């Protein structure tokens, strides 16, 4: 897809973004936030989205072995849940609106080009979505890409399991200086 096509797509998606997110919220399609239990901010649909997107965002980084990969992604989800909570109520609400947009069929299709649900989307489709938002001429999509990118990068590269690949031996003098187990 060249830049001109992006631009056309951008204008349509921009309108869709507003209309569909409003529709999603008004029509009750927006799942309410978790109120208790393990999760503070991420709803089931948000976790499905992140689970689908993480391996594409971090292609070549997450472990290949299924059990190790599942563990890595589960850790990412927990860390993401905490990270969004730590953003404070204002930013957390914006993230929720972004997830609403991504989870509601019409807005998801129009803005990301992914028409199936996230758990059924192909790797290629997800990659196209990431490229589309990153390269979009619309600042809003760049911003949303940056947000998801930073969250997934932080929650993967914040885990010790990622460090060997990137040649980071970890903190210095851990036996002397780390005095309680870390949250990750």
């Amino acid at each position, binding site marked *: 897809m060249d830049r001109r096509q992006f631009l056309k797509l951008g204008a349509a998606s921009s309108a869709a973004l507003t209309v569909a997110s409003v529709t999603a919220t008004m029509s009750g399609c927006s799942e309410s936030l978790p109120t208790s239990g393990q999760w503070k901010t991420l709803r089931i649909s948000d976790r499905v989205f992140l689970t689908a997107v993480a391996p*594409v965002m971090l292609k070549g980084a997450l472990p290949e072995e299924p059990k190790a990969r599942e563990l890595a992604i589960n850790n990412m989800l927990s860390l993401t849940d905490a990270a969004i909570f730590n953003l404070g109520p*204002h930013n957390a609400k914006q993230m929720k609106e972004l997830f609403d947009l991504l989870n509601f069929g019409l807005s998801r299709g129009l803005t990301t080009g992914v028409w199936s649900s996230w758990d059924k989307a192909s790797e290629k489709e997800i990659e196209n979505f990431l490229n589309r938002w990153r390269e979009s001429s619309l*600042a809003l999509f760049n911003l949303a890409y940056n947000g998801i990118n930073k969250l997934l990068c932080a929650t993967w590269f914040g885990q010790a399991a990622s460090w060997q690949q*990137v040649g980071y031996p970890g903190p210095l003098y851990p036996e002397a200086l*780390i005095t309680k187990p870390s949250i990750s």
Partner: protein
Amino acid sequence: MAIPDLFKDRAKSENWQISDAGKLDKNITVEADVIIIGTGAGGGVSAEVLSQAGLKVVMIEEGGLYTSDDFNMDEMEAYGTLYQEGAARATKDGAISIFQGRAVGGTTVVNWTSSFRTPDPTLNHWQQHHGVKGFSPAEMAPYFEQMEKRLSVAKWAMPPNANNDILKQGCQANDWSWAVIPRNVSGCWDLGYCGVGCPTNAKQSMLVTTVPEALKNGAQLFYRCSAERLIFSEHKVEAVECLALGSDGKTPTGVKINFKAPHIVLSGGAINNPGLLLRSDAPDPHNRIGKRTMIHPVNASLAKMDETTNPFYGAPQSIYSDHFQWQTQGDMGFKLEVPPMQPVMGAQIIGLHGFKLVDTMEDLPQLQSTIALMRDGFHEDSVGGTVELDHGGKPVLDYPVTDYMWKGLRKAHHKMAELQFAAGAKSVMPLHHDANFSNNLKDCKQEIDALPAELHRHRLLTAHLMGGCSMGEDEKESVVNSQGRFHNADNLHIIDGSVFPTSIGANPQLSIYALALKQASALVKTIKG
């Protein structure tokens, strides 16, 4: 345990008065001689000075109390607990990331220890263009000297880490000026984790210096205590209304704490100070609160080197260059420094996904990043941003990037690429969505010239928040006078970086320390008559 937790140990042995507001089960009123809101560079020094004078001081801190035992060199943990908005604070449009501390000790707990005196041209500019009195280089010199002594500020005597050494080599090869950075450390292990809380208590942050001194002098500390509103009456602040925050550090418990004192010192920093004043409907006849908020906008350039850099280890900042800071021929000036790059910080600034991200991250031990800190607020096309309130009463910074600034950012990219190639970089990439690694300077420069000047595509960040409550003698142009007294309330002083009329042109902590020492010492005289 190899490293004693000095704060915890002393708190116990010296019977410090510390309260976690989140644990209070009913509303209370607290009275003192002086209430200080915020425990960072401004509030910490003010607390020390005022408590040493025998005044009953109460310190209020919105963030949590974390001490060396809590500092595990873990990025995720630190960003979540020690930074404003989980280290994801950003400008109103989301385009510029803001790294600002939120803990007892404020940003000094997480800064990278660079300690510069306010440059003479900045002080002179304030005097000439912003009606500031008493801040000439000669008048300020004794305050800098005293704070340098207090916080063990000295030029870094150990060899710079590779990341910083490349900055030095690049400057030398291009015949640009450079120098060693003075740091506020004592017995530093050269670890590189200043940004996530110093695990060895070497960094002379407010957490291990002035706040303990104030507590020793009988001051009281309330943390997880968020200043919600100042109650103004005619020319006076009557009280400070605070909300207790629960153990998650975010959620109000419902308990309110009311603080009363004849004198109030506001030291919540840029963004939060104007936020509190705006929430409080503070008198502001000339509409100055929140205006001229400066951030030293930062852009970055990433280089792949042949040699091992391990940019995650070693004193994060030890070399700088002011070669393009003051002699700018009308362009925006900037300072060149380097950031530390632990994996999360590294991945966050790279802004890629998939194989491109992973390929770059796999080179982490050979990466070098240079940053340019743009000196904002010195030109008619750089008047800073404006703090306003969102619908929930949270302060947000609207910071426009002007053509003049884009020109400066582009020039900085050129100079950073010149520097990195001169220091032997194999390839260089300006951090921008549309950039790639270039293998030679010519290609890189062509690429830089072609980069669209667009927010959200250009990686921009800031760790230096200044202004928004400008000082000056002209009430139409400023929020406080040159002594830090709020123009419209006699018993309210603002003492921290939010009073700077421009950016500093250097990492601001020592500028704030010296200002706080000066203003708090004068306040003691006022109070004691």
